[in-house]
């Protein structure tokens, strides 16, 4: 078990579509499981990020204080940090709130359009940051995987290239938006 490469998948401000693409590897996941161990994912019941992770696939932009704390911790404890998908690479849809400002969208979402209990939440759920940022504007990123979402083939290619000790070349395999 200890010889396996440890892989984490993380879900920040994204739609989980990139995680669906991970599942889309289908039976290749079984093949991968011989070489890697998924030590931390939204589906593994583990609260804290492990002390050391070899490869982390991070979906989503950095949008809340929780995202900010998570991504810093992930960077600190990860060898190869992969920005998975357009939200992680470029901000994508979450950044569409930036031109309006966080206060304006909270006002619209929780006050103007709410039919009951009109109140902006101030506890339990993480506070939103003033501006949504792609991951590399917060911490250094090792590999950028564009796509909304990146295909299962591309994710499989990147993981197997890393397992083979190569840095994956993605230029002709990905593009923003698809």
């Amino acid at each position, binding site marked *: 078990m200890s010889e396996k490469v440890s892989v984490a998948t993380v879900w920040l401000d994204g739609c989980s579509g990139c995680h669906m693409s991970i599942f889309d590897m289908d039976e290749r996941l079984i093949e991968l499981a011989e070489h890697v161990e998924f030590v931390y994912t939204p589906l593994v019941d583990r609260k804290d990020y492990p002390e050391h992770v070899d490869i982390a696939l991070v979906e989503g932009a950095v949008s809340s204080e929780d995202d900010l704390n998570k991504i810093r911790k992930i960077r600190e404890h990860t060898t190869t940090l992969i920005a998975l998908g357009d939200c992680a690479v470029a901000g994508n849809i979450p*950044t569409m709130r930036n*031109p309006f400002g966080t206060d304006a969208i909270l006002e619209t979402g929780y006050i103007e359009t709410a039919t009951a209990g009109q109140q902006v939440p101030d506890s339990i759920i993480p506070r939103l940051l003033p501006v949504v940022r792609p991951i590399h*504007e917060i911490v250094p990123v090792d590999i*950028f995987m564009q796509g909304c979402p990146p295909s299962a083939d591309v994710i499989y290619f990147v993981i197997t290239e890393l397992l083979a000790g190569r840095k994956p070349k993605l*230029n002709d395999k990905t593009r923003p*938006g*698809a």
Partner: protein
Amino acid sequence: MPVRSRVKTFTMDGQDVSGHESETILEIARQNDIDIPTLCQLDGLSIIGACRLCLVEVVGWNKLVPACATYVEEGMEVVTNSERLQNYRRMIIEMLFAEGNHVCSVCVSNGNCSLQYLATKLGMDYVRYPYLNPDRTVDMSHERFVMDHNRCILCTRCVRVCDEIEGAHTWDVEGRGYKSHLITDLDIPWGDSRTCTSCGKCMNVCPTGAIVEKGKPAGEMIKRREFLGYLTKMRGVNNNE
């Protein structure tokens, strides 16, 4: 007495080429299957050299020149694809992405966009510059078309086609630098414009999803530019001269 020849011979990426003195480096490159990326340039419209993607090196010249706006000269040695040029081109594309609000995944032009195509082709894996996320508007006032300023890269193809081909000059650019943006007539809503003929030429030449047809779902806006070549040929007009 030396005879002045109108045919210029020179080299491009080490290859011997020739062109008429009225031809540009870009035209000769295309005739010789040498690929130089362009964005604001479109055959049939006047040349403005605004996007700077087609910058090339000429050995001995102390600055880079736009291939679309530089006429060929005898003996020049043109370099079209050095590492320096590739880096600058990628920078330009990244700055265009950082300057506007280009969200490919939900854009009607996703998969049919020159900016997106060039980003992939020129090897942009992420944008090194901080995103500005400017507060821009969307003009839905026209009955058939939408102007989404978030996706506009100010190539001015719409301005030129409207002025030079349609003869309406509904479009123009207002403001300077970062505040530059397109306007219709004297900055009134597009739908209120009395010069617009609703011909759709601006929509078809727009390289991104900035000017699009109403009612198109994400990824289904396909532009048709063939008309431009036919029109200019039939009219015998060459705006480049």
